[in-house]
């Protein structure tokens, strides 16, 4: 199953959904799409707008390929699944986002070999084909940022405690 997701953005992603719908009409594999705020209603695949987190996890788990917009939230989640990822950045000129920053994550993960980036939507079918040859390694979460925050909070707690002891003794 190919699972397509465009996240929770208030703008739709018609360019992607239309193209996937077109491809879904030609292939045998099942395609399911989370279309978010997209107005276009697919004809050749199952779709829904938004769904609970648990259901999303279930679909990520069940899919063979994940096709996604280049949103940080989605990326962060799907890197935990051992699945091929095809990523399509939203662009401002198509009224898909407020700017072109989605390009940045797409480029980074394409370069790292963690995803196949598609910048021109007509290359999507080729990208889907390419995923059959790639094996992805599971991502291991680095705890550095969590440790930094914990330490910072710990230091603040110590200071607060000393502060209150000082005020009692004085």
């Amino acid at each position, binding site marked *: 199953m190919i699972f397509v997701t465009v996240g929770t953005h208030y703008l739709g992603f018609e360019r992607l959904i239309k193209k996937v719908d077109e491809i879904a009409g030609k292939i045998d594999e099942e395609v399911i799409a989370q279309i978010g705020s997209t107005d276009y209603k697919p004809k050749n695949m199952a779709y829904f707008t938004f769904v609970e987190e648990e259901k999303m996890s279930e679909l990520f788990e069940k899919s063979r390929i994940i096709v996604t917009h280049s949103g*940080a*939230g*989605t990326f*962060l989640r799907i890197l935990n699944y051992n699945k091929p990822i095809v990523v399509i950045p939203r662009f401002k000129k198509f009224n898909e986002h407020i700017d072109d*920053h989605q390009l940045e994550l797409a480029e980074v993960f394409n370069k790292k070999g963690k995803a196949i980036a598609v910048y021109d939507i007509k290359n999507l079918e080729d990208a889907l084909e390419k995923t059959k040859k790639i094996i992805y390694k599971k991502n291991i*979460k*680095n705890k550095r*940022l969590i440790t930094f925050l914990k330490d*910072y*909070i710990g230091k603040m707690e110590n200071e607060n405690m000393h502060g209150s002891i000082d005020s009692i003794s004085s």
Partner: protein
Amino acid sequence: MKIALICCQGGHLTQMLSLMEAFENQNVFFITYKNPTTDQLKYRKYRVENIGTNLWRMIKTFFIAFKIIRNEKPNLIVSTGAEIAIPFYIVARILKIKTIYLESWCRVKTKSGTGRMLYHFSNVFLVQWPEMLKKYGKKARYEGAVI
């Protein structure tokens, strides 16, 4: 310690949730947007109307922020963006409450509008890609990322 966690829905919220281990045993509450995806957020929360680029709503949220922060008196405010954080960080500066701002993980090469502004209003300003350090300035720090 009481900690306010501020973020929009979507990627900003996912990034915050991936950091929850850092706030274990702390008294946390969220400030986020009213949105179907934040309905299910299982923490104590305040939800405000989407600001976006609407100046009037920004001003309105500033007064809401003042009320919430004065009542809650958090020891620390942490935000993963985006613009929802702006009025709260201005209030935090006025009320001398410590703040940490984490520039979004999706900012690899360019600064966000919110980051540009809150660089000046936060006590600790973190970026998630080392390349972003020189884009901002001396105050910016790289201490790892959400992944």
